[in-house]
């Protein structure tokens, strides 16, 4: 390993002393963190936390003083990044402003209230004890300034968990189930050291469960998706309350449908998954208030059949009818009970040729994707009969994730990243029991993505780009969601958390993300008139 030597004037002595201290104490090889060593970095496990904090400070310093940064970039001094601790320290001293006289003071940076260690380091003093003192003082400051301090143990364990999860998934893909099993045991042991209430520990716990289900119960899925329709509706409702994804989906789709129905007196909405019908009150109200008066609204709700003689679809229809009656909107409801969307035939919807039709699919189309790319796969069948209805608009909201890849490891990696982000966003929710039940809802999705295969795996999410290709290929063209939809979505997300959620517009489609990682995407489509059909008037 290249020893960093005192070629640089200001930073030389400090880093030299630091590296000399580390080399003089001759850390045993086992103390070097194994995981980072695999990536080429040598950091002592005991120093992980300190190095992490220093990296954070370096990042802040770089952001605060771009002038210094460019100077640094043009400077020809070579630092050895594999000795991460020294490298960070030496860079930090480059950023520190050398004050004229003070030797061991700590300057509090007024911008972000962090202590910037000044070039007291350059003074020829025994640095080692002072450096560690600095760090302790800095820790206190950090705690006071509400920076999250993750203990070295926890951070270490969190990183290890992720690595072990990936390794386990690789074993599962290659069929090495015995190693996978022992990894599961190790991970479950490691979970006890990690905070499982939030953060990586919680998500990791769910993924470990899903992996073990896959290994031990085979890929039929067990009881992952076996929840009753009633349970699913409850979980869905709490997911609706706890985070803005479904509200975003509903409000955006409603805005698009409202604009598409402009000028029509007979309108018909086909909802691919009625659930509790939470999307439709807002549309009914908006239609009631539209200039020119409300149209005749027909709603066809598709949902799973109720097991015990209860007609849940009809109950929802009655509730919606009562609301429509209160606001003087002529309303008719029809329920279509089908356990799978591909079982629905267009004649069941009883579409009148004179009415304007809107097809609404909130996270349903991906369930039609099978693993085999056959000619008449369910998605093609359904898309072709939708096209046959000639809808004024088809609103499609789908998870913005690539969870339908054939390779298990790729899928697993994507899912880990996606659901970690989603759980992060759930932290902004403060209401219970909505939050806990929303987590169970997400947990079931994770279980399906990870531990199921074949027809049991229904959560086959695909990103917007793929849906664009698929829908264009099926004879649809994209409609732009207008600025009203964007404005409404921004306002809605601000209500939930101004700091975390973001709406982005992407070629006429809106996507909602958490800290600019997109999680859910909404788009609107219209059937392209076929060349060999009669050109009907609407």
């Amino acid at each position: 390993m290249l020893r960093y030597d005192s070629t640089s004037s200001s930073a030389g002595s400090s880093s030299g002393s630091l590296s000399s201290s580390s080399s003089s104490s001759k850390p045993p090889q086992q103390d070097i963190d194994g995981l980072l060593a695999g990536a080429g970095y040598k950091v002592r496990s005991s120093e992980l936390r300190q190095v992490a904090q220093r990296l954070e400070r370096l990042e802040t310093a770089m952001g605060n003083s771009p002038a210094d940064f460019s100077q640094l970039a043009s400077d020809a001094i070579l630092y050895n990044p594999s000795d991460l601790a020294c490298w960070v320290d030496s860079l930090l001293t480059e950023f520190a402003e050398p004050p004229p006289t003070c030797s061991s003071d700590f300057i509090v940076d007024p911008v972000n209230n962090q202590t910037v260690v000044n070039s007291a380091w350059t003074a020829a003093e025994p640095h080692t004890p002072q450096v560690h003192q600095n760090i302790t003082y800095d820790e206190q400051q950090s705690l006071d300034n509400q920076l999250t301090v993750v203990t070295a143990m926890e951070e270490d364990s969190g990183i290890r968990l992720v690595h072990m999860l990936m390794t386990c998934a690789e074993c599962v893909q290659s069929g090495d189930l015995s190693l996978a099993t022992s990894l599961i045991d190790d991970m479950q042991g490691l979970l006890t050291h990690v905070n499982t209430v939030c953060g990586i520990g919680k998500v990791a716990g769910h993924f470990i469960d899903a992996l073990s289900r896959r290994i031990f119960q085979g890929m039929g899925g067990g009881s992952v998706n076996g929840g009753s329709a009633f349970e699913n509706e409850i979980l869905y409702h709490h997911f609706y309350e706890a985070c803005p994804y479904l509200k975003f989906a509903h409000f955006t789709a409603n805005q698009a449908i409202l604009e598409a129905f402009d000028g029509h007196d007979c309108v018909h909405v086909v909802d691919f998954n009625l659930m509790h019908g939470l999307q439709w009150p807002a549309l009914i109200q908006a239609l009631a208030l539209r200039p020119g008066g409300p149209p005749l609204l027909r709603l066809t709700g598709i949902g799973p059949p109720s097991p015990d003689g209860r007609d849940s679809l009809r109950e929802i229809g009655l509730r919606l009818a009562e609301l429509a009656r209160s606001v003087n909107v002529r309303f008719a409801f029809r329920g279509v009970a089908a356990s799978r969307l591909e079982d629905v035939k267009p004649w069941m919807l009883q579409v009148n040729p004179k009415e304007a039709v809107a097809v609404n699919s909130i996270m349903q189309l991906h369930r039609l994707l099978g693993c085999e790319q056959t000619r008449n796969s369910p998605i093609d069948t359904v898309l072709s009969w939708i096209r046959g209805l000639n809808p004024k608009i088809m609103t499609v909201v789908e998870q913005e994730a690539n969870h339908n890849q054939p390779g298990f490891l790729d899928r697993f990696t994507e899912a880990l990243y996606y659901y970690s982000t989603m759980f992060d966003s759930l932290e902004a929710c403060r209401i219970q029991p909505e939050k806990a039940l929303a987590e169970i809802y997400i947990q079931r999705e994770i279980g399906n993505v990870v531990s199921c295969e074949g027809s049991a795996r229904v959560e086959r999410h695909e990103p917007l780009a793929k849906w664009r290709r698929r829908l264009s290929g099926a004879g649809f063209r994209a409609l732009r969601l207008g600025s009203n939809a964007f404005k409404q979505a921004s306002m809605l997300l601000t209500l939930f958390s101004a700091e975390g959620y973001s709406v982005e517009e992407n070629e006429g489609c809106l996507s909602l993300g958490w800290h600019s990682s997109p999680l859910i995407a909404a788009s609107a489509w219209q059937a392209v008139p076929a060349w060999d059909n009669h050109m009907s008037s609407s």
Partner: protein
Amino acid sequence: MVQNHRREDHETGGENKEKRPKFFINDHVNILIEILERLDGRSLCVAASVCRLWCTIASNDSLWENLCFRHVSPPPSSVRSVVLALGGYKRLYTGCVRPVRSRLGRVRRASWARDEVQLSLSLFCVDYYERLGGSNSNGRLVEKSSPSSLMFLCKPVNV
């Protein structure tokens, strides 16, 4: 109009009261209404606790209608019937408009005022629908005694 009708009622009530030598606001209900019309939501709620007359006036939905549309150009008349059907302006204001305005206040843009009311109205409608569910429940649907789709507006946002 509802407000005038109410005013007449209270004037007759006021005339029956003993005439005092000095000015007593409750004798001049029309002035009282003019004053209460200009209050903000919280003050209006406080005013409702003063006495029965004030309580009656403060519960008058048209005062709350003023509050909802205070910073917005007057909406079309069809809005009123819809809002009354969904639960009234007081409920709309306290449940939706006020929390929406205060949350968005931090990042508000000037052009959002009307959209805020529209968004509030949509949320209000979902809330009404959920309240319907409670009354229609036959024991299998989730009983929601308090509207939960607006719960996210009630809790403080931790930003």
